């Protein structure tokens, strides 16, 4: 039997549990949102295959783990191969799209997304597969709350990635070039920057981040051929909430959506938790379409 608890302490523990679950899924949405932003900022393309990067990251890792490849190596191989897939997609399809209007680029990335999902459904299968946590211990207990050890990995991945991305963009030459292209591609071209290869690099980086998100969430959410759809949608919702092209906004947006969703699942109903992200997104589109954390120009047309 448990110790007598002060009234209310159970509900507080429950709340904290939901809250932390929300932070975890929110971190993943944030990573997906950053992936959207990186491609969007250099190419003005919203990559509808962003969720598929996540799915591929999870699937490749799962396939390697099934063949008893050590976890660190599987993770590395999966993120690098998806980065390469990003480059290939850009080279083969995006860069060659005829009369590349916004509509045709959207259709192109939708085509890519459906194809990738279909290939995995046929080549692997349509089932959900469990993946074992990265760390040797299953769970951690903090202050009476018990979590999967994978939570630590997700938090670590999110923090490490956003900090290194911050320094990459602000301090390194390549990052500065990328920012320059995102501010004004034409001007960057006039300064002799090869905009094409910067765009290709942004597909690689975005693939890398997407795959990382998929690989670290796999032990919590299972991997399945169509997992990219929901993660992609919620990542997009996080972008909308945070303001498109704004990476700190994307993190805030991801966390808001993740936490709201987890609280709704805990207190209201878990079968409708997927609604929350979209309700928040539609609401933000009505009230402040430039995003809650953005002072930049509204992307009205």
């Amino acid at each position, binding site marked *: 039997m448990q110790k007598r608890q002060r009234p209310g302490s159970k509900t507080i523990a429950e709340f904290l549990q939901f809250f932390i679950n929300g932070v975890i899924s929110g971190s993943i949405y944030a990573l997906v949102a950053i992936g959207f932003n990186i491609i969007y900022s250099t190419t003005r393309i919203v990559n509808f295959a962003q969720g598929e990067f996540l799915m591929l990251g999870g699937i490749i890792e799962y396939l390697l783990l099934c063949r008893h490849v050590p976890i660190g190596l599987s993770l590395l191989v999966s993120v690098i191969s998806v980065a390469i897939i990003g480059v290939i997609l850009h080279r083969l399809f995006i860069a060659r799209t005829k009369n590349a209007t916004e509509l045709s680029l959207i259709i192109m990335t939708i085509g890519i997304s459906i194809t990738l999902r279909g290939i995995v459904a046929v080549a692997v299968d349509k089932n959900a597969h469990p993946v074992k946590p990265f760390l040797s211990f299953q769970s951690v207990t903090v202050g009476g709350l018990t979590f999967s050890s994978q939570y630590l990995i997700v938090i670590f991945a999110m923090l490490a990635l956003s900090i290194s991305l911050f320094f990459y963009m602000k301090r390194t030459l390549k990052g500065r070039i990328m920012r320059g292209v995102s501010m004004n591609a034409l001007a960057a071209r006039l300064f002799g920057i090869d905009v094409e290869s910067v765009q290709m690099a942004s597909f690689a980086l975005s693939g890398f981040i997407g795959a990382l998100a998929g690989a670290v969430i796999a032990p919590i959410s299972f991997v399945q051929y169509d997992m990219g759809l929901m993660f992609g949608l919620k990542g997009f919702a996080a972008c909308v909430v945070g303001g498109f092209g704004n990476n700190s906004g994307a993190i805030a947006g991801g966390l808001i959506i993740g936490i709201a969703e987890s609280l709704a699942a805990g207190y209201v109903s878990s079968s409708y938790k997927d609604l929350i992200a979209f309700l928040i997104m539609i609401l933000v589109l009505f009230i402040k379409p430039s995003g809650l954390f953005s002072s930049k120009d509204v992307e*009205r047309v």
Partner: protein
Amino acid sequence: MSKRLFLLILFVVTMIGGFVVKNPFVLNMLSFAAISVIVVTGLNLLLGFAGQISLGHAGFVALGAYISSLLTVKAGVNPWLSIAIAVFATSLFGAIIGYPTLKLKSHYLAMATLAVGEIIHIAANNWVSLTGGPEGFSGIPMLSVFGFVFDSEKKFYFFIWTLTFLMVLLSINFIDSRFGRAYKTIKSKENAAYAFGINVHLYKVFVFTVSVFYASVAGALYAFYMGFVSPASFGLLQSIDYIVMVVIGGMGNFFGVIFTTVILSVLPNLLTSLEDYWPIVNGLLLIAAMLFMPDGLKRFFSWIK
């Protein structure tokens, strides 16, 4: 040849086809193709004339189907009245979604409709007490006009194709009207459209609502023909199918789109063993169209003015 004359010829051919073909399986397949033609004709207005994309049209079809059949089955409302209510409610819903998103770049509408489609799919699966969940629900009566019941494949074939041709004619008239000219201006030079005093935002909301209207009509007819609805028929892959039909047919090209819709809705019935490969085929078709033929099969239909 003029569009309307060609449409008339096509109509006559389709009607004669209905008398000649005896096989109920074929008639049934063609009736379903007609329902898809209605959806895709609406979607074609959106893609081809407003340059916007909806990834949730199967969801709007589902709303039309569920609302109309639930009103009839659970509330005992007259089927035609239920269809009218369902179509009105779904179109209104479309306008509400379109209003904020169409102020922005086209990927917002694409994502919002993708989300709406998923929400409708989730709701249809989970709201078991109302929708029957994944198993769906049946017992939807046949439609009838003045005591004449559309109770055979043949009768429904004539009914649905007549209606389909009327809907196509309506869309052609729509595009040839003052509205249509406004959309052509918006599509070719949006700033010029502003300068001419065209309220671009409202025009886009309007055409999106019209396309949702087409989808909901198709959905309601689908429900009353099948006598049964389940969420499986209204997933994302179905929405993608509709887009593929428009893109391959040639965005903005009425007859190319009808042609590909009939082919692409009949083909999966004949090649059922390849079911798992359809998404890949669809995806590759979209990619190939954008790489090599952004106008789809338009050039083969350019002789119809």
